[in-house]
């Protein structure tokens, strides 16, 4: 059920069906997600700035970034996560036009790409540990693993949310009217991607 409301500016807005009244006229869930993402900027800002603070301050003779980083390998991981943002937004476009089969395909693809990224990170971390870098070896090790570990945990949670969406869609519990649910998960997923864009540049690429 829709109706047209004339806003104060004289332009026209369209009421979204199925939403209870809200103080802002916008979805509370979406406002909440954006507020949450704003707060996550502070979390990752703290972790990234800690890494930058400790950069180059480790005890001489202990392991440093250039000893362990494999830029080509991490570039591929970055590309995988970037493409998962594309598949996520395609999943949203699919459910908004009511194409449930495509929605499931793109959601599953996004989850698989995200899981590949996490698997790549796990492999990278085990390689680093084998080369003598761990949480306790020096400032570089502790700040790196905390930062990328937190990011990896966020990606993992995102993958679980995507698999939940996939399951809901399979059971017919994700109709077109619930496209906002996919949008909210998508916002979280894209945020995880943009955090990695910053981490890849500041941690891996900038010497």
């Amino acid at each position, binding site marked *: 059920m829709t109706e047209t409301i004339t806003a104060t500016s004289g332009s026209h807005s369209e009421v979204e069906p199925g939403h209870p009244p809200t103080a802002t006229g916008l*979805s509370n869930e979406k406002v909440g997600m954006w507020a949450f993402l704003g707060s996550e900027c502070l979390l990752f*800002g703290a972790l990234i700035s800690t890494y930058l603070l400790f950069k180059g301050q480790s005890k001489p003779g202990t392991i440093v970034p250039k000893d362990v980083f494999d830029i080509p390998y991490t570039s591929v991981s970055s590309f995988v996560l970037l493409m998962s*943002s*594309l598949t996520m937004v395609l999943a949203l476009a699919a459910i908004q036009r009511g194409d449930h089969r495509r929605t499931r395909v793109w959601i599953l693809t996004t989850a698989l790409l995200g899981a590949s990224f996490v698997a790549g990170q796990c492999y990278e971390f085990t390689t680093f540990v084998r080369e003598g870098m761990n949480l306790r070896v020096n400032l570089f090790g502790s700040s790196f693993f905390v930062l990328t570990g937190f990011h990896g945990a966020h990606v993992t949670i995102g993958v679980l949310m995507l698999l939940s969406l996939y399951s809901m869609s399979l059971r017919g519990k994700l109709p077109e009217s619930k496209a906002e649910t996919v949008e909210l998960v998508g916002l979280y997923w*894209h945020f995880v991607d943009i955090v990695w864009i910053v981490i890849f540049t500041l941690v891996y690429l*900038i010497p």
Partner: protein
Amino acid sequence: MTDAAATTHEPGPVVKPSPAEGGTHHDHPSELEYVKIAAILAFITAAEVTVYYVKALKGVLAPILIVFSLIKFTMVVLWFMHLRFDSRLFRRLFVTGLGLATFVFTAVLTTFHVWTR
């Protein structure tokens, strides 16, 4: 719903933002546009990695990489996260968090003389 209710700040039905409120005439980009954005992001990522290996650019590597990452960050936020097409309130919420984080942690790093090491 009457005009009187639309002009007050009382709770009301959820509305999509009109262009005057920060929304746009079209709701979302097409799938082809998303693919084009992704192609641009992939190209910029490749450029970042290429620049990393060019010895002649070592002196300006950090500014170039920061600019590239800012471009990618902005494109994902504006197009993939739909901030360009959504209500200004969402933009304000995100930019407030981002701006606060940038300001606070730049201040922290400046206090510890990170930039002049």
